[in-house]
């Protein structure tokens, strides 16, 4: 495929407010999963990856002084990460050649929840109607940067921002754009907490991906955006890494569960390797979807065994650090994959205690420095069987 380069990255999560702070937390093996402090919920006892900045603080950090009541938390997180990514990418590209592919699953739900009474009785002011849907965060970001061509918002559950990255990459490949801001944003909400709780898949004490004693997901919140550029405009000194392969597939199996044999995940990993023109043996590190649910880790683990056989590269899930940030997860893990390549690091899986009896491998449990990391494979799997795999390579 024609080259798609990453020239900017921005991230806010429970690990910190920038890519630099993210890397520091990862190096210190510090989890951001902790009790919820910023909003009221009966599920407060369930820890999550909360960004410890109130909406007011986020507004102040971004110098937003007018219409402060028209910014949802989703939009504020998104703007924070998008600004960092765009600042990092210095190229001057014709505005007509810049696009934006954002993603979210909860959209304006944080606003919806706080104002449910007036929304459902129709007494909320009409000016707030734009805050309810998925497009709001993307349009706030587009307005901030003056991007006006082909702006969209993808929503495919937990693989949303991985799919946003794929759509952006295809815009570059097909020549529709030279520079695309891609990523995702999601705020913690009572809606998502209660939704995952109703499925009985929330971990009561912090997720344990690929562990025999795993007991569910820890939710998180945050935003992560990347700047993709074509070979024509990317300045060599700005290139952070290269998106070398990607795939979007659907397992077409079940609305909320993946097949235990990992058929969908296998398909996703294999096709991504094919588009990258790489062999399984070329992959130096797998940043797994690894949610810590019984079914995901079994299914994904089996798929990794199917594709990589007896030569499984180091595998870890970094959701033990950030929590599962839903729509932001794919882009957040893309940035973590990029950091692994840039700094030749392997990040350990947190809270690991015992090998899954069904699997032949254990996740990476120690921090490894100065190991050559040239190709990283990152999985994102979502409800509805929406699977995506991305491969990042040293440029």
């Amino acid at each position, binding site marked *: 495929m024609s080259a798609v380069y990453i020239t900017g990255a921005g991230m806010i999560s429970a690990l910190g407010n920038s890519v630099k702070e993210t890397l520091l937390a990862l190096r210190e093996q510090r989890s951001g999963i902790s009790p919820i402090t910023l909003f009221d919920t009966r599920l407060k006892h369930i820890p999550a990856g909360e960004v410890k900045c109130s909406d007011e603080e986020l507004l102040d950090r971004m110098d937003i002084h007018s219409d402060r009541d028209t910014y949802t938390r989703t939009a504020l997180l998104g703007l924070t990460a998008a600004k960092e990514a765009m600042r990092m990418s210095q190229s001057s590209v014709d505005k007509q050649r810049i696009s934006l592919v954002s993603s979210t699953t909860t959209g304006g739900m944080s606003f919806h929840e706080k104002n449910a009474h007036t929304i459902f009785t*129709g007494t909320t002011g009409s000016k707030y109607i734009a805050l309810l849907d998925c*497009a709001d965060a993307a349009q706030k970001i587009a307005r901030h940067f003056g991007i*006006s061509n082909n702006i969209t918002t993808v929503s495919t559950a937990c693989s949303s921002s991985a799919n946003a990255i794929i759509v952006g990459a295809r815009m570059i490949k097909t020549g529709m754009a030279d520079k695309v801001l891609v990523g995702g944003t999601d705020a913690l909400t009572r809606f998502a907490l209660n939704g995952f709780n109703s499925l009985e898949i929330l971990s009561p004490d912090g997720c344990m991906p690929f562990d025999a004693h795993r007991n569910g997901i820890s939710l998180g919140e945050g935003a992560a955006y990347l700047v993709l550029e074509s070979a024509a405009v990317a300045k060599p000194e700005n290139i952070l890494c290269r998106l070398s392969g990607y795939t979007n597939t659907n*397992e077409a199996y079940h609305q909320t569960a993946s097949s235990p044999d990992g058929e969908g995940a296998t398909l996703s990993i294999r096709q991504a390797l094919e588009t990258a023109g790489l062999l399984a043996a070329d992959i130096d590190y797998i940043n797994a979807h690894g949610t810590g649910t019984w079914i995901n880790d079994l299914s994904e683990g089996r798929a990794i065994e199917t594709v990589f056989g007896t030569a499984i590269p180091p595998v870890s899930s970094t959701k033990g650090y950030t929590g599962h940030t839903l729509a932001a997860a794919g882009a957040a893990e893309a940035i973590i994959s990029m950091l692994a390549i840039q700094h030749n690091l392997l990040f350990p899986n947190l809270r690991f205690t015992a090998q899954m009896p069904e699997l032949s491998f254990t996740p990476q449990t120690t921090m490894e420095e100065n190991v050559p990391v040239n190709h990283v494979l990152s999985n994102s799997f979502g409800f*509805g069987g929406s699977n995506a795999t991305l491969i990042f390579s040293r440029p």
Partner: protein
Amino acid sequence: MHAYLTSTGLISPQRTFENDFSCGLQTEGAAILPAIEPDYRGLISPVQLRRMSRILKLGIGAAQLCINNAGGLQPDAIIVGTGLACVNDLEIFLKSIIETGEQSLSSIPFINSLHNTVAAQVARILKIQTYNNTHCHRGASFENALLDALMLLHEKEHKQALVGGIDEFSMHYYNLLPAKVVTGEGAGFFLLSHLPAGKNSVKISAVRTFYAPGEDFIARFLAEQHTPVHQLDAVLLGMNGNPSDDAVYHRLIDNFFPPDTRLITYKHLCGEYHTSSAFALALAAHSIAAGAFPAPAVFKPGKSAKPQKVLLYNHYQNCNHTLMLVTG
């Protein structure tokens, strides 16, 4: 980038599920235009039907109609555009959180509320394991889904893309609208191919979406398509009856489109909703194939040649602007 239209399946406030636009269009509209739904038993298995929310029935029903109209041809990509997705299920789950104080909640409305539910269920029912995506971007949702399909087909890794535009009516959203316009809903699916399905296959020549664009974006788009404005045989405009929204179209009628341009409107037939452009595309494709636009859709007759080059322009609250060029 372009694609050819193989077939359409449309459930709308008109009886379009039976015989597209030859059904006798009704224009005596109420304030809210609900979709006229087919008997789903011929389209969806009874077991599945019992469990489906309304938007799923609309979406799966229209997708199945589209596949049937293509003689059972299977897509290798499924892409849905939906402004508010499963907004009524979302409302059910949110209300139950509030009413129960977050206790003993059923997971069903949560699962049904996910934005990619329709695309995922179409994939599951048709057993399509390839590309699956959902765009939720207000008034540009459907056009963004179409653009996604055009890129896929352009890359030639996929041959047939099933693209849908779906939205259902939501009372609480309607209550918040700043200006009440005739509001509708609907589900339109289109099977697109990188090759023409037959000699008279309608072609989607270009799709573009804009957010708060500059003045000359339509002229720029037409220039890129090498289509001077006087060559357009018809223009479909998304007028919705709200004076401030319609003023945007009237400025173009007065200053941009030549006086003999044939102008077509459709929101008095399908109502305003985020993906009403799916209705407009079906109407344009039908009219190109039929050689004429149905009389109730004609806003200004203009030139009378058989429509071959048709521009579709819609905007949502003067913020999301979308253009499609469709040719015979």
